[in-house]
Each structure stands twice: as structure tokens, then as C-alpha cells.
């Protein structure tokens, strides 16, 4: 389908378009034209990704600036999906335009997913793959090889050097799979191909972390130009990603291993002093001069990069007391010992970085400034020593990261020491959390650097919360509703059981037998009437376990068992994926199944239950966070003091975005249908916080139902919706053909004209005065001039 938005020709790879997709494109274009940020909410399953891509690619190709697109998504599967969409789009464009465009689109993910080296790729953990890869591809390894020494190298990586550096891979869109295949064919490393080609790409698709986590962003995304268009898709959790990227945890075990790392480091230094004194001396000289090797920090083989945001880096020479390698190691050891001593305390401590530093200085004479340089100094030392088994130094790196962060940031951070895992635990297992409380810190550089940032998701309500929390201003802030030819989903709020007793998972009543029984009967009733698959979400694993065991005692599970298979999500990813597989099979075979999951678990975020895989979603209880967590408490207090967001507002906002995310699981397109049940008394008041598209479909009559009423409404709904419904009935209403679109555009243009005319008419009332004033001014000037002429003559 081909159409114009203002002057921009858009090629859309499907023969029909949804009205909300068109509206989305218009707003997106407005944002890009104005050069600002925007927050857009579009219902899940309405083709957000393809809409975004087709508009932005059209924008890129039409205007001479060719602004690059950086598309950030959350999970690997979403990245792959977006790449496939992009590939389809480009194929369509080529077909339509009759030529291949000069275009390159690449996805980037971690080394673990893109490695081809026969032994390295077999490693399980990502950090081990990273470390081993570095030890094979570091600059000094190559130097050694050239000198004729016998060292291991990666042939895939070295082959890249034989190619032209700006043309490692031909034009086109490369999915991750395709990239791997191409790499295998040509024997070249897919990871480094993608990394190095990033500057020459039109579209880059990668994970949030490459842009938000300063440890990676500095290396990967530094060269991207200012006019890039940045898109954060599925961004409803973006604040948590920001916070995680600047937080670290330190455990006793990691300290122990860090000590070992420091000892190894010391031994290496002594070795090197005996064998190759000159290298140490060189490093020392360089540090004295305050020289940083040209772009040293962001070489792709660097051991680690600075965890601090680029704005907060101190650009000066390394302090004198850690310039010598042995001084630095003793410095590190002192710091680690200090942390160990702090960990011995058996009560919870929460303190600000400032008071931590004061205490540290008092006991170890470690000043703030050298601490700030810790990460940088360690990187330099590791490079000088040419260490190869980098994974041994991982814990040391963690400690150095922590040191640098704690010495750099005073505001918006907190140190929390928790000696026990839970309140009832007897055996201490201390963890030192260094938590970031302010999501705006990590994302600030992104907003400052790039002119257009688009934040979008299926559930990002209330929209104004995000600009507030992340500290930015928007040009456009819009939530689209879903246009439907018939009511294809039925949201309901169930507040009472059949016996009229109110149901809620609030802490006081959640284990009362009547509440549990009412939830149980709700489950059995819906299991009876729902065809095929059904998904149930609980607020937490703990509650799910306890309620399931109580249901077992009441015989409720047996009742459900008659209608459906019961499957349960567990924290273990493998078990869960097995359960999902079984669930899918049961739905396909017609047996039907119930999936019991947790509202903040893996299933609630990434798994789609489209069509018969999910006909009912039942959200038992408001999925509040665990409010006793000290980190959460600290963050709430920070939000209240800094952004004036009240505790309860934030908690309920957070709970509702997860609830909405759960509800969105079952509706993945316009031909899909499903029932959404929110089962808690408290949902009634939180209705306004649901996304617009759900809220609009929620009738007032359906907000305070008892179980039996809900069941009869659902039965009625299912009866109607199960009738055959031809696609042609949707055309013109919820699906537009080209003619419909043209009609709509004409209508909009007509409306615009009418509006303008109305304005003109309004302006006509007082046009004379407005126009005369400037005229009279000019006339006076003319007179003056004439008078002057006369005088002159």
C-alpha cells in the first residue's frame, strides 16, 4: 500500500492499514519534523513495529539528511522479530520502487549469541564468552602473533582485517540468523562485523543496554551522530532498566574472589617487574603525563569501561598515589578489606554515598578522588599486564565499578547493606546494594544527545508519569484507542464472589478461606466456559504457591482438572518453557489448559497468548511490588522528595502497568478475541490508570461484578463472538483499504479547510485595525522622508 502523509510518500508493506496505525504515523512524523521527544501508546497487536519502521524508513529515504534509526527493544526475540519485519519492508520497497535502495540494517546482540568460534561458543555464561573472546581478540594478542609467538587467536575475528573496513558486509537487512550464516560462510566474526559496521548502517536494532548502560554505551554507541532517531519499544519498564544499569550488588563471595584477583594481580606485577620492567615504566610515564591513549577507553577489546556517564568523567591525570601499579594493588586490597569488615555487621544499614566515603576515609585513608579513578586505572593496568584469562578478574572489576560509582555520585544513590536474605533467616548472607534511585540519571545523556527520542509501548499509561520520572519534555504525547468493527474483547472487574463477599489480595485478607474459595470458584467457572487456553496471573510466586496448596485442600483443582489441564510457571526458565510447550500442545489438541503464572514473571512480559492460546486472562489481585523491600522504600522516598510523586501513586501506577501488560497478553491482533478479568476489589478505584484502549472498552456496568454476573456476561460475549465474522465486515471501520484512507485524508483536509475558514471568519470581525496599524506607521515614515527631501532641496 502506498500513500502520502503531507509531502512524505510512505510505503506500507500490507494491502490494508488500521486507522490507529495511520494516526500513529502522523504523530510520529510530526515529532520528527519538530525535532523533539514523544511518548506514544498503541494497543498491543496492532502492528506497532511495522508502522514505526515503515514510517521512519520512508522518512530516511525521502529527506536528504538520511537520519539514522536506532531501534531499541528488550529481548533477543523481539530484536529478531523487528529485523524480520524490516527485511519484509525493504523487500516490499524494492519491489515497488523497482530498485534496491542503498540501505543497510543490522542487529546487534551479545557475543554469546553471535559467536562462531568452535570452543568459545560452547560456553554457557555470557560473561565467560565475553572474557574468552577478549583474550583471543585483544590488540596485544595480535601483536604477539605478529612477533611470531605462539598464542591462540580467533580466525573469525582476524579475517575481518583482510576486508575493507567500511564494507564488511553487503547492503541489505541482516537478521541475526542471517548474519550468523553469512559469517559461517565467509569465516568472519558476526559480532565484530555488526559492531564495526554500525557507523555505516541506516537502521540499527539492539537492546536497551547498548544505549543506557554506560559500561557498554560508551564503547558501542559513541560514534552515533546527533540527528539519529532513537526508538525505545516496549518501553513500559524503561525506568527499571535505567536504574539497573547504574546499580551494583556486592556479596561476600564476590569480595573473596576479588581478593584472590588482587593477589593474582600482584603476582603478575612482580613477574613483569622481573621480566619486562619497561612496560610498567611506560604506563607510569603515561599516567604522569595524564595522557590517555587515543580513545583508549573504548577500544573494542577493552577489559571494562568506565561505569560512569560520560558527563561525569573526570578528565585529568590519575592521582599520584595510585600511579604505580603496586600502589594501586595495595589500594584495592585495602578497599576490599574495608568492605569485608563492613559486611560483618549484623544489622541493616542504609547510608548515603557521602557518609560511606567519610567513614571509609576515617578507617582506611582512602580519599574520594583516587577511588573515582579506580575503574580507569584497573583497565589500564590490565592492558599493561596483557592478561589473558580475564574472567578471573571479573569480581575485581565489579569492586572497581562500585568504587568509581560511589565516589562519583552523591545524589540519587543509596547504599543498603542487608545482612540476611529475609527477615526470618538465621544464617547471614550479606549483600551490599549500591542502588540508583533516580531513573533520569542514566537516560539523561540519551535525551541530551539525540534530537528525537520516541518512547512507545502497548501499555505506557499514565503517559505523563514517564516524562516526570525520566526528566524530559515531550512534543507529542498520545494514546491511541483500538478501532474495532465489533467488540472483540471484554474487560471486566470482579469485586465480589458469588456469595457477595468482597475479594482482594490485600495482605490482611489474602489467606482467609472465604477469599481463597471465591477465587477458586472464579477460576473453575471460567475454566468451564472458556474455550481452549486460559491464563491466570498472581501477584507473586509466594502467594501463588500458598493459594494453590489451599485450593488443593479444597478440591478446587480437581474441579478445574475436569475442564482443563493445569500448568504452573516457576522461576526456573527451562521448566517454564517446558510448561509453555505443553500448554500450547494441549490448546492445539483441544483439551484446553490453564496456565498459572506470576504478574512480574517471564511469561507476563514476553510470551504472547494469541488466538486459541489465550481466550481468557484472569488477573487475581493487584500486582503490587513487594513493599517491604528496602530498595523500593528508598526509591519511593526519593521519588516523593525529588519529583513529588507520592508513594501510593507510584505503587499503584507500577502495579497497573504490570496488570495491563498481563491483560495485553491475550489480544494480539484485530481478528483475535478474549476476555479480560480483573479480580480484586481494589481495581475499581484504579480503573483510570488502565491504558486508554482497555479503559474505553470497559463499560461502567462491568466495573463492579460478582462472579456469577461476570460468568453470565462472559457466556453471552462468547456466544456472540463465536459467530463467523468475515473480514469484509471490518473493512472501512477497523481496516482501511487505500480508498478508505484516501477518503479519510480528504475528510481531514476538508475539516482543516473548514476550520481555517472559521478562523478567518472570526478574524474578519476585526481585520481593519489589525491591518491599518502597520500601514499607518509606514505612511508616517513616508511623510517624514518627503519632508526630509524637501529640506534637502
Amino acid at each position, binding site marked *: 500500500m502506498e500513500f502520502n502523509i503531507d509531502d512524505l510518500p510512505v510505503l506500507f508493506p500490507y494491502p490494508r492499514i488500521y486507522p490507529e496505525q495511520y494516526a500513529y504515523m502522523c504523530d510520529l512524523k510530526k515529532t520528527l519534523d519538530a525535532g523533539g521527544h514523544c511518548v506514544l501508546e498503541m494497543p498491543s497487536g496492532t502492528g506497532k513495529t511495522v508502522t514505526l519502521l515503515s514510517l521512519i524508513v520512508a522518512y530516511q529515504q525521502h529527506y536528504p539528511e538520511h537520519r539514522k534509526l536506532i531501534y531499541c527493544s528488550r529481548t533477543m526475540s523481539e530484536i529478531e522479530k523487528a529485523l524480520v519485519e524490516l527485511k519484509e519492508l525493504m523487500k516490499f520497497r524494492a519491489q515497488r520502487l523497482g530498485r534496491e535502495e542503498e540501505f543497510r540494517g543490522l542487529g546487534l546482540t551479545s557475543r554469546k549469541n553471535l559467536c562462531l568460534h568452535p570452543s568459545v561458543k560452547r560456553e554457557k555464561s555470557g560473561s565467560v564468552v565475553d572474557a574468552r573472546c577478549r583474550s583471543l581478540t585483544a590488540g596485544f594478542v595480535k601483536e604477539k602473533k605478529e612477533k611470531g609467538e605462539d598464542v591462540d587467536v580467533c580466525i573469525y575475528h582476524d579475517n575481518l582485517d583482510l576486508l575493507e573496513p567500511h564494507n564488511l558486509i553487503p547492503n541489505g537487512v541482516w537478521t541475526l540468523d542471517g548474519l550468523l550464516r553469512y559469517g559461517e560462510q565467509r569465516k568472519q566474526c558476526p559480532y565484530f562485523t555488526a559492531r564495526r559496521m554500525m557507523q555505516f548502517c541506516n537502521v540499527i536494532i539492539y537492546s536497551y543496554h547498548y544505549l543506557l548502560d554506560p559500561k557498554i554505551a560508551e564503547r558501542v554507541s559513541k560514534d552515533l551522530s546527533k540527528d539519529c532517531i532513537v526508538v525505545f519499544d516496549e518501553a513500559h519498564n524503561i525506568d527499571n532498566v535505567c536504574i539497573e544499569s547504574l546499580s551494583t550488588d556486592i556479596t561476600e563471595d564476590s569480595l573473596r574472589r576479588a581478593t584472590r584477583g588482587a593477589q593474582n594481580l600482584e603476582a603478575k606485577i612482580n613477574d613483569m617487574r622481573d621480566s619486562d620492567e619497561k612496560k610498567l615504566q611506560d604506563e607510569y610515564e603515561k599516567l604522569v603525563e595524564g595522557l590517555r591513549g587515543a580513545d583508549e577507553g573504548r577500544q573494542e577489546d577493552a577489559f571494562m569501561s568506565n561505569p560512569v556517564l560520560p558527563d561525569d568523567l573526570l578528565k585529568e591525570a590519575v592521582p*599520584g598515589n595510585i600511579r604505580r601499579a603496586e600502589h594501586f594493588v595495595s589500594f584495592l586490597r585495602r578497599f576490599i578489606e574495608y568492605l569485608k569488615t563492613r559486611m560483618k555487621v549484623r544489622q541493616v544499614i542504609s547510608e548515603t554515598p557521602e557518609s560511606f566515603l567519610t567513614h571509609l576515609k576515617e578507617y582506611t585513608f582512602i580519599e574520594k578522588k583516587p577511588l573515582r579513578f579506580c575503574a580507569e586505572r584497573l583497565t589500564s593496568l590490565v592492558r599493561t599486564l596483557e592478561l589473558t584469562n580475564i574472567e578471573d578478574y571479573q569480581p575485581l572489576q565489579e569492586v572497581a565499578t562500585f568504587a568509581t560509582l560511589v565516589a562519583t555520585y552523591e545524589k540519587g544513590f543509596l547504599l543498603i547493606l542487608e545482612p540476611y536474605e529475609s527477615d526470618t533467616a538465621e544464617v547471614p548472607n550479606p549483600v551490599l546494594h549500591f542502588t540508583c534511585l533516580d531513573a533520569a540519571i542514566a537516560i539523561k545523556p540519551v535525551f541530551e544527545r539525540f534530537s528525537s527520542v520516541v518512547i512507545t509501548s502497548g501499555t505506557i499509561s499514565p503517559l505523563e508519569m514517564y516524562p516526570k520520572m525520566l526528566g524530559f519534555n515531550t512534543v507529542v504525547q498520545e494514546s491511541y484507542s483500538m478501532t474495532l468493527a465489533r467488540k472483540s474483547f471484554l474487560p471486566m472487574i470482579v469485586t465480589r464472589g458469588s456469595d457477595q463477599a468482597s475479594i482482594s489480595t490485600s495482605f490482611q485478607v489474602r489467606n482467609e478461606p472465604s477469599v481463597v474459595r471465591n477465587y477458586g470458584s472464579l477460576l473453575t467457572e471460567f475454566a468451564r466456559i472458556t474455550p481452549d487456553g486460559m491464563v491466570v496471573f498472581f501477584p507473586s510466586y509466594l502467594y501463588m504457591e500458598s493459594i494453590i496448596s489451599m485450593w488443593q485442600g479444597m478440591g478446587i483443582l480437581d474441579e478445574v482438572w475436569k475442564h482443563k489441564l493445569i500448568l504452573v510457571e516457576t522461576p526456573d526458565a527451562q521448566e517454564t518453557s517446558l510448561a509453555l510447550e505443553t500448554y500450547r500442545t494441549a490448546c492445539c489438541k483441544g483439551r484446553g489448559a490453564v496456565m498459572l503464572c506470576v504478574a512480574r514473571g517471564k511469561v507476563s512480559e514476553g510470551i504472547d497468548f494469541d488466538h486459541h492460546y489465550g481466550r481468557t486472562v484472569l488477573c487475581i489481585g493487584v500486582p503490587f511490588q513487594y513493599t517491604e523491600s528496602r530498595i523500593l522504600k528508598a526509591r519511593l522516598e526519593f521519588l516523593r522528595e525529588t519529583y513529588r510523586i507520592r508513594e501510593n501513586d507510584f505503587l499503584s501506577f507500577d502495579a497497573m502497568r504490570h496488570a495491563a501488560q498481563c491483560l495485553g497478553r491475550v489480544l494480539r491482533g484485530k481478528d483475535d478475541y478474549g476476555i479480560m478479568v480483573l479480580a480484586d476489589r481494589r481495581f475499581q478505584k484504579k480503573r483510570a490508570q488502565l491504558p486508554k484502549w482497555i479503559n474505553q472498552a470497559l463499560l461502567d456496568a462491568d466495573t463492579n461484578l460478582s462472579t456469577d454476573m461476570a460468568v453470565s456476561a462472559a457466556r453471552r460475549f462468547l456466544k456472540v463472538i463465536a459467530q463467523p465474522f468475515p473480514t469484509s465486515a471490518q473493512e472501512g471501520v477497523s481496516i482501511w483499504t487505500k480508498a478508505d484512507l484516501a477518503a479519510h485524508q480528504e475528510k481531514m483536509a476538508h475539516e482543516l479547510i473548514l476550520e481555517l475558514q472559521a478562523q478567518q471568519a472570526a478574524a474578519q470581525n476585526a481585520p481593519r485595525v489589525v491591518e491599518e496599524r502597520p500601514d499607518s506607521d509606514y505612511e508616517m515614515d513616508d511623510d517624514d522622508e518627503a519632508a526630509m527631501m524637501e529640506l534637502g532641496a
Partner: protein
Amino acid sequence: MSRSPMVCTDDMCPVCKTIRYLNKDMEFLINPECYHSMCSNCVNRLFNDGPNQCPYAGCHRTLRRKGFRSAFFGDLSVEREVDIRRRVAAVFNQAEDDFETLRDYNNYLQMVEDLTFDLVSGNEGKRRNAEAQLQQWEASHKAEIERNRKAGREADEQARRRLTAEKEAARQRRLDAIREAEEEKRERLMSREAELDNMAAPEGQRVQLKRRGQTSRVETAMNTAMATADVGKLSIRGLKEKKKAPAPEGPYDPFGGMDFVPSRYKLGEGLSHPQIEKYRYDPGHTTGGYDFDEYTARVMFEAFAGMGVFIEDEKEVGIGLSASQVASIGAGIAAVGDKMELD
């Protein structure tokens, strides 16, 4: 000082071999003479009757009961290092603002670090050298050390005060928030009750409840926040200000640099007019101190005196227009403004 960084087994006393299983609250003590750790029972047993030799084999130091204390660090070599650092830091206590360039400061830091390192892990000769250097520095920089110590103490004191003030303010704010929330809850309850009452009462007597005092409370909260922000002024200590050579003094200027050269015209030499030419040599006008050019200068000044002042600007807008005209102008402007926004 025999250095044997005894791996501190946290569960057995190396002297009497008691294990923690038998004595739950066993406490280990060290003496900074030799850093050998032993349990408090052993310390009492051995040193209650005055000074005695260290019970470790090969260690012949005489220890006193008074010197024993519990170690802060688990690793005793670090404990010892920190003790030495404490001593060094008391002498080498210069701060960044005592130096003119960063490089000097860094060199100083390295010098101190080298010295400390020698003291901690150097051999006998190096240690003695370092010790001598330390003493020499102390002797030669006595006044400076004292001054810096005082400054450091003051800074510490200030920092501590600021911290406590901040903590107090945070506590206060938390209390305020709780109170606010409670008040709101109560108000909500009250308004609901009032609504119910209204429903019971005959209609037409709806009372609007207003939230009073809300704004003022927020304001006071803001004020306290502001006040706490400048409790202990932030003391930023950077490098010392560089000594600059004083700028050379120019000739004395009675007007302090004010410029009297006219900007709109230029006074040429020998301006004249036939009418006044005769006065140039008239003794009545050329009395002492009077310069004839002053006259032309003043004439020029007066001629240009009004330039650049526009009476139109001074006038208030709308003078001479009737009220209705003004209103229609306003409407016109508003209409145009609307249109621009919509476009």
C-alpha cells in the same frame, strides 16, 4: 617487627587452642607491636601481671595489656598498614589547595605513597630511611602541619554538621508527608460524611468543602527544603589560586574610564561660522580659561541632544483610541494567534 601475616582463623585461638564451639563469645585481640592475634582470655591470663613476652614462637617482643585492642580488618597486614598510614597521614596532611598545579599535587601524593610503601613493606634499610624522612618532614613543616590539621578538622566538623542537618531535614520531610497523607485521608472521610449529611438534609444546601491550608503547607515544606540546602555551605576545595603578577598601573583617570567622545557625530578641527568668527579674537570672550572651541562643541551637542529619543515609544499604547477600538484590536490579535497555533 617480625612480619608474619597470620591467617586469622576466626574460630581457634592460636595460643590456647580454644575453639569457638566451646567459647561462643570469644574475642580476638591484637597488639600493634607485633600484630599477633590471641583470644581475650589469653591476654588476661598472660598480661594481667604486667608486661610479658609475646607467646608466639620466635617473637620476642614485650607486650603490655594496655596495648591490646580488637582489629578492625580481618587481614592483619592491612590493619598494620592502616596504622602506619594513620601515622603518615598525621604528618603529610597537605590538601589539594596547598598546591598550584595538579602535577605538583600528584607528585606529592606519590612521594607520600612511596614513603608509606617503604614503611609498610620495605626492607630494613628502606624502612629506616623512610622513618628518617618522615621525622625530618615533621620537623621542617611543623607550622604547616598544625595549620592543615586544624583546617581538616574544621572541614570534617562542617561535613558532619551538614550530614546531620540533612538527615534531620529528611526525617522532618518524611514526617510531614505522613501527616499530610493522614490529613488528606481524614478530609476525604469528612467530605464523604458531609456529602451523606447533605443528602439527608433538604436539597439546595450543598456545602462546598474547600481544602484550606494546603498550599501554605507545601510552601513551608519548600522553604524548609531551601533552608536545609544552605545549612553548612558547601566548601569546595580545589587547587590553590595561582599567584599572579600585579597588572602594571596605568596613568590616573579622574573619570574612571568613562567615555565622553560623542557617538552620533564627529567634531572636526576649526569648525566655524562667519557670525561668530569675530569673537575669536575679542578680548571680552577670550578671557583666561575660556577655549573658543568649547563654544562650537556645545552648539553641536545641543543640536544633537534630542536624537535617539522617540516620543512614540514613550507614549502609552492605545492613547487616542477608544475603548471599543482597543478591544477589537485585542480580538484580532487573538484570532490571528489562534490560527497560527492551529496551522
